[in-house]
């Protein structure tokens, strides 16, 4: 049969291509969306100067964990992954990651790598993940809109009364300018990143220290919700915010948003891709005025048994070099090596320094149920932020969230 011969030939050719590609040593790597261009640029720089290539696949941030877990289960996992560091313990505990202990400790600058990343990358005294990117949340305002609203464009607001008042003035400029923005349509990841600092700075948290009790109903949280509710009610937040599940997180880039909490990655994006937007950056004030921030970022992990672990390590060493650190910092990822941080940031936009300063006041929540509790679009935290800020029944939202969060924690014990 001619057809079957043709098919056989075709599949042989395909096979040869696949085998050929493997010999050219291309590392498959996944990275989550929403972290700006820093990683893409790093990969471009690496591919431009090395024989081995990195093939990067961007996966939606809200689905990366399940996609990676499914891929591992199906034997299709990428060689390496830029993993949101809060998930590192869960994957290390499941014995799915390559042990990097000996190699990592031999790095001359090992001691100066971001300690919180290394801590979350360590499981039972073995290192499975190393810092790739560091990000903190900060407050940003559009200086042009401040000017138009008759505000001092160089003075950062320090309380939420001030932010709310400024928002109202910016809203009054024209029909399509808005005072404040947040992704309020059930984006747990966005809200833990940008909203919880309002309560952290004031000494409250949504989980107890040991992570075993949900403590969402605090006076600080009620106050923070109140500020957001009032702004929504006053109409200074675009109506689209109520259903934004994170897609429009960088709304400030459209030039019509006066103020927003965002991340250091976004500073890089704004500086490099939207140079026409003049903005200021400061630390996020809490409800009582003290500042706080969320320190997040990604760890670099290698899938257990990957045949291309050597390239992955080589790539990571490049990321840690002065050149690699500079590329990443330019696009908004803060330096992961403290020993050369000053040198990396020397020629960069001074606003990046605010992101570095935020590390000192920042917090990283740690729980094995992070996906279920916080990040899942249908988790209790995501629903709570939407219900409490946009809904009619604030008390009910608090009660439901408290109950559901505690239920998830208890079920996992």
């Amino acid at each position, binding site marked *: 049969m001619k057809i079957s011969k043709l098919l056989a030939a075709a599949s042989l050719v395909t096979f040869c291509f696949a085998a050929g590609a493997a010999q050219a040593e291309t590392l498959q790597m996944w990275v989550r969306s929403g972290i700006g261009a820093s990683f893409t640029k790093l990969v471009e720089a690496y591919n431009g100067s090395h024989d081995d290539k990195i093939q990067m696949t961007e996966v939606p941030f809200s689905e990366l964990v399940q996609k990676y877990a499914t891929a*591992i289960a199906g034997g299709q996992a990428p060689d390496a992954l830029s993993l949101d560091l809060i998930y590192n313990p869960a994957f290390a505990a499941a014995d799915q990651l390559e042990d990097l202990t000996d190699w990592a400790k031999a790095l001359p600058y090992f001691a100066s790598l971001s300690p919180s990343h290394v801590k979350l990358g360590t499981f039972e005294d073995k290192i499975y993940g190393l810092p790739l990117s560091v990000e903190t949340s900060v407050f940003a305002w559009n200086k042009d809109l401040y000017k138009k609203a008759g505000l001092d464009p160089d003075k950062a607001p320090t309380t939420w009364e001030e932010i709310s008042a400024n928002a109202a003035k910016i809203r009054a400029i024209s029909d399509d300018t808005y005072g404040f923005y947040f992704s309020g*349509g059930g984006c747990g990841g966005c809200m833990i990143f940008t909203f919880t600092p309002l309560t952290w700075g004031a000494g409250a948290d949504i989980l107890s220290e040991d992570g075993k009790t949900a403590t969402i109903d605090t006076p600080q949280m009620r106050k923070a919700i109140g500020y957001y509710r009032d702004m929504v009610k006053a*109409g200074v937040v675009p109506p*689209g915010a109520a*259903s934004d599940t994170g897609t429009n997180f960088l709304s400030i880039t459209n030039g019509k948003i006066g103020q927003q909490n965002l991340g250091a990655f976004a500073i890089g994006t704004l500086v490099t891709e939207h140079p026409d937007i003049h903005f200021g950056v400061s630390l996020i004030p809490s409800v009582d005025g003290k500042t706080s921030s969320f320190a997040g970022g990604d760890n670099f992990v290698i899938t257990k048994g990957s045949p291309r672990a050597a390239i992955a390590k080589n790539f990571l060493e490049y990321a840690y070099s002065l050149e690699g650190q500079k590329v990443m910092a330019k696009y908004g990822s803060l330096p992961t090596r403290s020993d050369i941080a000053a040198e990396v940031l020397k020629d960069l936009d001074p606003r990046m320094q605010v992101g570095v300063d935020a590390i000192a006041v920042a917090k990283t929540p740690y729980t094995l149920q992070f996906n279920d509790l916080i990040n*899942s679009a249908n988790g209790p935290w995501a*629903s709570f932020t*939407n219900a409490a800020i946009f809904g009619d029944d604030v008390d009910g939202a608090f009660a439901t969230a408290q109950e559901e969060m505690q239920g998830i924690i208890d079920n996992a014990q």
Partner: protein
Amino acid sequence: MTLADSLSPSPRRHRPKRRSQWKGVLYIAPAMALVIVFFILPVLFTFWMSLHKWPLIGASSFIGLRNYVRMFSDTRFYSALGFTAYYTVIITIAIFALAFPLAIFVERQRRMVGVYRTAIFMPVVVGLASASLLWVWFGNVDSGFLNPLLAWLGLVDPKSNFFASFDSAFVVICVMVVWKVAGFTMIILLTGLQAIPTELGEAARIDGANRWKRFIYVTLPLMRKTMALSLILSVTGSILAFDQFYIMTAGGPQNKMITVVYYIFNQSFVSFNLGYGAAMSLVLLAILVLISIFQLWLLRVGEDRP
């Protein structure tokens, strides 16, 4: 002559009975192989999984019927069932309310009937995911056109976000699904209508039956099997709904739009409880089978006379 008739041995042929039975088995073997490999075996494996605590990564452990016991006290599972039932009832009524008149409209030979049929059927060939994305954009408060249009008609406030409240988001999704699916139901009903011999209608007219009576006493009874088919397709499709809620509202404002399949997906691939997801899938399968049997019974399909 139906397939069953041709397979049963007829007295005129003088072939041994056994041989023709083997021949019958041979004929259905490919179909049976497909059903066994792609349905029976997966269902058995799903059942096996449902008896385990089966995380997506890591080792599984046998826990007997605990996943099924858990379902009884899982309020989120019940609310998912409740919402799915609500959605199925509303959307099925909406689809039929539109598709039936459309089928009657395009059945008659009139000018440009081909154009009407094509236009109404067109959305069916769009993928559900693409259609959902399209309508998210239509309904977007900042850049869509539904808002300005309805505001211009004086129906809504121009700043109202359809996807922010349950009722309006639900209406948008239902309109999208009806737009997408009604054409398909219409085509099925159309074939049923065209299968009715015109003599019957004429005879009824001669007997003095008016248009409404002819529809109730002649057309509807003869449409029974067609309606059963489209009803089962529509109900099954609605009970298995997932894409539109996942894409358009990510589960809706405050998780009010989580269907059963959505909940199974979340349990399996967000919370990594594959075992629990498997148990719920089997319960859903049982529910679907029961509902289909009930519908066939209700419409008396299989009996020759009402």
